[in-house]
């Protein structure tokens, strides 16, 4: 299949398999709302009865927020601490969930979508966890290699360049390089996981095969990534732009934007699913 066929295939497969996407959505939403609603509770308990809170309905109010944080900031600090622990737990759990998504769109197993999701998630969990740990370590190295020196070079570069424009160009260039590196790691990890599913190989062989596959079909992989990442960026961008235009200053708008927000999250999960479908189609095409 060429790139446009892969994109169409990925889109169709993802749309068909909306049930697994919803499973991932609900798990993710549960974790996010546990934290998000705590913010509501803390604010409600602290300043919920103040007339100042009404200002937050209409618009952002810096004074209300700053006075709140100054007096009640100690109540908010534990929430940030919770995030520190939730994130690593989420990372491991997402290996399980993404494994379910990927095995569902790989189409190798029988059974309903939900059954394929749970079976695949548990079947491939440890292989995918090893692959994830490998890429997390690579990401850490890549971050230290690129961003570390960039951050350290910012101040000295101001003495080297005639103006801060040079420093900004340097930073943007390094950020672009970093992003390209992360993109490559991401696509390599997807190709490797597909190889595990289709070839039932060891992790090390899957990594090698995935690297080869990525090199052979890099433009297809990149096209898939641009397409489905682009949809996500456009979705979030549209949300921000629309909100800027309409404001968010009434109960009706708050409700509508809540629906929009959650729809955007589901779209993002589905786009990930569609990308997995396209990537797996490339792997499957040779088998």
């Amino acid at each position, binding site marked *: 299949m060429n790139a446009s066929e892969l994109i169409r295939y990925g889109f169709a497969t993802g749309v068909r398999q909306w049930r697994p996407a919803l499973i991932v959505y609900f798990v993710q939403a549960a974790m996010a709302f546990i934290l998000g609603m705590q913010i509501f509770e803390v604010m409600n308990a602290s300043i919920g009865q103040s007339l100042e*809170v009404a200002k937050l309905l209409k618009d952002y109010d810096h004074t209300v927020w700053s006075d709140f944080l100054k007096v009640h900031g100690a109540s908010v600090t534990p929430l940030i601490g919770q995030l520190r622990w939730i994130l690593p737990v989420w990372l491991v759990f997402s290996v399980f969930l993404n494994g379910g998504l990927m095995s569902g769109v790989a189409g190798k197993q029988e059974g309903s979508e939900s059954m394929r999701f749970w079976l695949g998630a548990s079947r491939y969990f440890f292989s995918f966890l090893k692959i994830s740990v490998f890429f997390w370590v690579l990401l850490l190295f890549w971050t230290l290699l690129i961003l570390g020196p960039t951050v350290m070079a910012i101040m000295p570069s101001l003495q080297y360049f005639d103006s801060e424009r040079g420093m900004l160009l340097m930073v943007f260039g390094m950020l672009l390089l970093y992003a390209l590196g992360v993109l490559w790691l991401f696509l390599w990890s997807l190709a490797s996981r597909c190889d595990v599913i289709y070839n039932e190989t060891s992790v090390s062989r899957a990594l090698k095969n995935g690297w080869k596959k990525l090199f052979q079909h890099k433009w297809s992989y990149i096209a898939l990534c641009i397409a489905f990442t682009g949809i996500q960026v456009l979705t979030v961008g549209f949300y921000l732009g629309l909100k800027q235009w309409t404001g968010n200053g009434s109960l009706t708008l708050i409700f509508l934007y809540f629906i929009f927000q959650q729809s955007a999250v589901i779209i993002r999960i589905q786009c990930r699913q569609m990308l997995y479908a396209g990537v797996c189609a490339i792997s499957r095409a040779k088998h």
Partner: protein
Amino acid sequence: MFPSMNGRIISGLIALVALSVVHAGAQCDPFFPKALSSRITGYEIRAALNDAQHQIEATEVIRFTNPSTEPVSELRIYLYLNAFKNSESSFLKGTSQIFGQSYIPRKAENWGWLEVEKIEQDGVGDISASRHFVQPDDHNPADESVMEVKLAKAIQPGETAVFRLKWKSQMPETIARCGHSKDFYMFSHWFPQLGVYEEDLDGKWGWNCHQFFRSTEFFADFGVYDVYLTTDAKFVVGASGCMLSDSLQADGRITRHFHVEDVIDFAWSAYPHFMVQEEQWKNVKIRLLIPPEHLALAPRYLHALSYALDYLEKHVGPYPYPVITVVDPPFHGLRSGLMEYPTLITVGTFYGMPDGLRMTESLIVHEFTHQYFMGMLASNEKEEAWLDEGFVTYFEDRIIDAAYGDKRGLVDFMGYHFDNRELTRLEYTTMANPREGITARPGWFFSDHNYKPLIYSKTATALRSVQQLIGEPLMDRILQQYFESWKFKHPRGRDFMGALKTGLATLPDSSYAAQVYGLFEKSVYQALVLDYAVAHIGNEILPAPQGVFGVQKPDSSYLPGTGQGQHYARVDLQRKGDWIFPVELLVTFADGSTRTLYWSGEEGSKVFEFYDTPDIVSAQVDPQYKIALDADWNNNSITLKPEDGGLWKYAFKAAFWLQNLFQTLSILS
């Protein structure tokens, strides 16, 4: 005439023309028909910059007129550059970082110093031998920022003495304000300058000439400056006052002559890459020196400055000088930015600064407003910095918020917005310990972290509170009267307090006037915290009267308590801080009616009771937000009908962005 003589004359004329390139005309007219100030001092400086060595060699003539009734037998002279001579100066001691950046290690030629090689007194001769350094404030023997010179011949009251100096200086690689960064120079407090000879609070005459500390700025007497600056031709130069002429020297360098009258200081800047933008505002020439990478931001600077000129003329008084020069340093020279000197200010910005971030505008307005309080009132910034920085911050807030809108004046970017007044108030109210000291004390008693919140923000917030309590028109009248009475006279804190008291006395309610005066006085001379809160509101139906009533049988009667009792409502207020100030309370009832009550604040708490009224729905202290000094506005009110839609909005938003974070972070999972 003989041919050889003709030839010599012609040659001489040609040389004369070749050697001098006279500017088509002066930049502006700096001469006042009548002196604005007492002109106690006069300076004529001839300085040449050696760019390769970053050094200045200069001769200087200082004229000093004894303003006192006693002879003056010594001079005290600021040598500010010596603050950067080594790490043991009073300015640098105790820290390795200035403005958040380390200044050490550095090579020998990157430190700064100023050496007076010779000083002569007209009619006396060489008095160099009597020079020595003094440290009147901290007795740090390593500090050389103040030089004392004993005079062989005292200066009699009213007499003008003339001193001729020869000096040399090394400009540091910029640590704070002055110095060089690559080929950018900022020359501020760069020459030997007299302290102020004045009468102290006890009526004793003497030199007010403090050492240079990190947390102090500058204080000098009014005078006339004639400054001849010789630099390489590559430099574009901006300076205080007007350039009267520039001439090309035989060695290819240019000498520029600047003149400025009735100012307390002279500063200048040089950079080969400055682009010059000029505008005229009434009779004031605005001269903006800006590096090419910031040129797109020039209209923002010019618009903000013109607005400030208009606003201050209307609300304070006219700007009398013919010019204002604005120096925008290149980013690597930003440590020289954000400062004020008479008729020259330094600002600072960043390439590509978005329109919704108005630090560019806020800075230029702040620094220009200093022309009034530092430049013309010229109070002692070392001892009473609040009289300058606090007032400037107050007007900066007024100007920026008037120009760019309430709630959005300073920042309006990606959904976040706030104005100058909000930020100023929060800088004070969010201090970790607002009781850590009073505002009205010398600068060297402040630390790096409490200087700005107390001197700038608390004073400005107090002025804003006064304005909101008495109204802007009366506030303007008070400030205009203060400015008109004290410009060019170095007012002290007590002088402003006197002007404030006089202005407030025009209020019809004298006890209210006394309260407002007390509020401001406490804000500057005491370290208190002002915080009022509504602690509780309640509504209930009391039981019907029951029991035995009357004194003795058979006159007493028994009521069984059937039927409904009175409706009872209450509002509990608390004064959580130690600052007592009367406050308004607005009570809103369920039928929409309201009642306004007053509390003196003397007690720590107060209960207002209401009988047979509708239910109280809400109660709010200071409903018009007049008292900006209140530490927490969120606790100023309680409502029994909260509108928590805003809290839901932010909870949903937090959850949404967490979901996005989870989704993004899991790309390698």
